[in-house]
């Protein structure tokens, strides 16, 4: 190409990112071609910025500047630190799948226990399988988003989990992403297939090991849910305070499915979760909920697109943001109702709690309705803590911060209580409590 070399916000050539990583990216020549194409898309688009409608409130050019080079595969010392982090963040009773700096860590994972219940492979091994001509498809999505293209180009590993039809998982699967490196990027992509009539709980956890800082995470999760399945999906992003996390979910929901999704953002300097959920089978119920807890100068963006492609589905979204200091929370919720999707019942409610005068909340609900017999709606509020409630608590002996904490917990409780499992809910409340302790 005869174009001038594209540069990052910090003056480095964008193409270096891919060129320097290419030797380490798994895949047959066919996969490599898909990667190259994806990178060209990224190179053409560059980091998303505010003139891209979907990224209007999360200008990565301004907030992040450039994508850091690919993290090195973890060495023994890194894996040791990761092991400590796993201990600290593992959910009791859950079966762990651990990715360290973008590489699957079998020794830290419960491979054996899981293999008896589910099909389990790594993305790396599937991509590298020369006998599989369709491997490149694992890197394709329908999206034209720059960050998703970048993920396709750079993904080093991920897990491929398949739950057979009518399997009732005996324990939650916890996918733990651990960063041990500073100043580098990890790109992961995982595929989860939940069979018809199956029952599964999947938790994603994003954390730093030890003092890992200034790193970037770009993750994609492709989740396919068969008819009549019952799925709880929880994502807990608690990355280092100066990290960047951009995650994309592609969820396809069959008929008569119950899907309960919950996301909580308590970490990272800049983060975005973009979830694209398609209700593709009739009679399904989606409950999609989230909490952003942000302080200092953190920027947290939760963007959910719920696509009612067929009739007779219900979707409910409850979102809460607690924003302190000069932090900035973004919630974009789009409900699409396709022309055929009659009797759709889709509602979202979002509330922001501003704990400081400089805290900022952007809230963009969108209803795109192409069917006429539907019931859809959204509501949004933003405000400060109620002084009269604060005073009541203080008059009963609670110091200011503790009174605030109690009211904040009550506020986010409205979203957290949507998690049905007691132990998981307690785990989530524990993370929220630690966030509250960081405030004081």
């Amino acid at each position, binding site marked *: 190409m005869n174009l001038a070399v594209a540069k990052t916000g910090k003056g480095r050539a964008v193409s270096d990112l891919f060129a320097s990583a290419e030797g380490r990216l798994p895949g047959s020549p066919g996969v490599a071609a898909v990667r190259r194409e994806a990178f060209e898309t990224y190179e053409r688009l560059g980091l998303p910025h505010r003139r891209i409608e979907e990224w209007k409130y999360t200008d990565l050019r301004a907030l992040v500047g450039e994508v850091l080079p690919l993290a090195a595969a973890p060495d023994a010392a890194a894996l040791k630190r990761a092991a400590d982090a796993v201990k600290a963040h593992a959910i009791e009773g859950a079966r762990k799948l651990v990715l360290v700096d973008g590489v699957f860590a079998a020794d830290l994972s419960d491979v054996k226990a899981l293999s008896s219940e589910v099909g389990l492979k790594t993305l790396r091994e599937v991509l590298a399988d020369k006998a599989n001509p369709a491997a490149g498809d694992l890197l394709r999505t329908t999206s034209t988003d720059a960050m998703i293209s970048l993920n396709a180009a750079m993904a080093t590993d991920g897990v491929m989990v398949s739950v057979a039809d009518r399997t009732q998982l005996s324990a939650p699967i916890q996918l733990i992403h651990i960063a041990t490196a500073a100043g580098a990027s990890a790109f992961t992509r995982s595929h989860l297939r939940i069979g018809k009539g199956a029952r599964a709980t999947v938790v994603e956890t994003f954390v730093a090991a030890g003092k890992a800082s200034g790193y970037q995470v770009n993750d994609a999760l492709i989740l396919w849910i068969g008819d009549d399945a019952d799925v709880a999906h929880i994502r807990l992003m608690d990355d280092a305070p100066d990290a960047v996390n951009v995650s994309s979910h592609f969820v396809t929901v069959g008929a008569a499915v119950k899907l309960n999704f919950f996301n909580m953002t308590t970490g990272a300097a800049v983060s975005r979760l973009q979830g694209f959920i398609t209700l593709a089978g009739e009679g399904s119920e989606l409950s999609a909920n989230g909490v952003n807890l942000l302080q200092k100068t953190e920027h947290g963006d939760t963007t959910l697109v719920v696509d009612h492609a067929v009739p007779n589905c219900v979707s409910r979204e409850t979102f809460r943001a607690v924003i302190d200091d000069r932090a900035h929370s973004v919630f974009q919720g789009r409900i699409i109702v396709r022309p055929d999707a009659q009797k759709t019942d889709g509602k979202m409610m979002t509330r922001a709690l501003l704990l400081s005068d400089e805290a900022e909340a952007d809230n963009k609900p969108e209803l795109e309705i192409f069917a006429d017999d539907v019931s859809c709606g959204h509501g949004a509020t933003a405000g400060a803590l109620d002084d009269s409630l604060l005073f009541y*608590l203080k008059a*009963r*002996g*609670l110091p200011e911060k503790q*009174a605030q904490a*109690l009211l904040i917990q009550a506020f986010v409780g409205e979203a957290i209580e949507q998690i049905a499992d007691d132990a998981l809910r307690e785990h989530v409340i524990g993370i929220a409590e630690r966030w509250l302790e960081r405030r004081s």
Partner: protein
Amino acid sequence: MALLEVKDLKVRVEEREILHGLTLTVNEGEVHAIMGPNGSGKSTLSHVIAGKPGYEVTDGQILFKGEDLLEMSPDERAAKGVFLAFQYPVEIPGVATMTFLRTALNAQRKARGESEYSTPDFLKKVREVSKSLNIPQDMLKRGVNVGFSGGEKKRNEVLQMALFEPSLCILDEMDSGLDIDALRIAADGVNALRSPKRAMVVITHYQRLLNYIVPDVVHVMSKGRVVKSGAKDLALELEASGYAQFEDA
């Protein structure tokens, strides 16, 4: 010994003076009643003692056990033993009453350097007190005052008072909204807390409450001042003649 000394207190709300030099002394072991027409400043006084923001004290002082109360934050006052049973208790959705009670009690104990209550000890204590006040246990699982009837809210205030064992209890119209049975139960609860070390200030419009909680001293407040003080018979006198005689005071 004087527990509470309010001296020539002047208070403004939004540039308007509400209390115009109010003086009141309450000794340990005493029960004082404050009566007075609507808008005379009774709740304002109770709020200033409890430390509610939005009131500007322009003159005078409030001493509690000899210490300057106005220098303390509301939670410090609570830990030192000041308790206000609110005229209008707020509802706090999402904060279970039980959680609230325990958090508050332990916060007060911590501030006083006392050890926190263990869960069984705490539960036992709450059960005892709520039983004596006829408060069903499932009410305590709900959000603080959420969906409580007017009377239940008032009983919840008395429950907290019994649990926290403050040395100064200010009851702002505890009787409003209570039916006769509930009034008797609540009053019994208050009477059970009477002790030589504890004082009470009972704000009410009705002499009836004072049949149950018999005061040592009755004060009449009008237009931001205490205009008359006397023995319990003063309440009966007021009931007969109204506040007109004090309007020009």
